[in-house]
């Protein structure tokens, strides 16, 4: 009796030892950080990178303050302003 076996495509990747080491280090670092964060031992520090969305928001906030157009709103006012 013949049975059919679904073909599975295989992908071969070639990595140098240095690339493989960097990959392993990155994966281990991410997993260890995640585990430590889950246990409450550690949280990654906040580093606001120039060009990140938070950085751009803060820069825009400063520009608005300098222009005198910055207003601090209540939650209700902030959410209703754009409805």
């Amino acid at each position: 009796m013949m049975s059919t076996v679904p073909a599975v495509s295989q992908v071969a990747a070639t990595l140098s030892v240095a690339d493989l080491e960097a990959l392993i280090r990155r994966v281990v670092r991410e997993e260890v950080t995640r585990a430590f964060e889950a246990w409450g031992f550690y949280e990654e520090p906040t580093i606001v990178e120039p060009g990140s969305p938070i950085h751009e928001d803060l820069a825009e906030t400063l520009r608005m303050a300098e222009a005198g157009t910055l207003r601090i709103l209540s939650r209700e006012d902030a959410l209703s302003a754009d409805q």
Partner: protein
Amino acid sequence: MLTSRFAYREGWGPRFAKAYRRYRNLRHLIDRRMAQVLADPYAGTERLGKVPGGIDLRGCRSIRVTRNFRIIFVVCEECRRVPECRFCFCEGLSDETVVFLTVGPHERAYTVREEAIEYGAQKKVREETSDS
């Protein structure tokens, strides 16, 4: 008039309001962290500082929402005591006010990804426009 059912009152900066609307899918997590901050803005939060090449964030604090998302805020009673603080927009507000400045990714890599998504969306719109 800012009011609150927590120990601290909340004030929203315009960029925080915009980001809050933008990241709708994370709103439940953001709300939870905001409540935590308004109950005690010093517990589980991080003081920020001056990073070479970046904005001077002395007087500001952050709290983690997810691995790459942070809420940035100031506590009026604290930033009033930090002369270098550029984000103390607390004039007319009580000491027990937290001003939320922004929420979002703090790593640049995520900006690139967002731009790619937005670019893809714009390209699709252009193609649809040119087809019609």
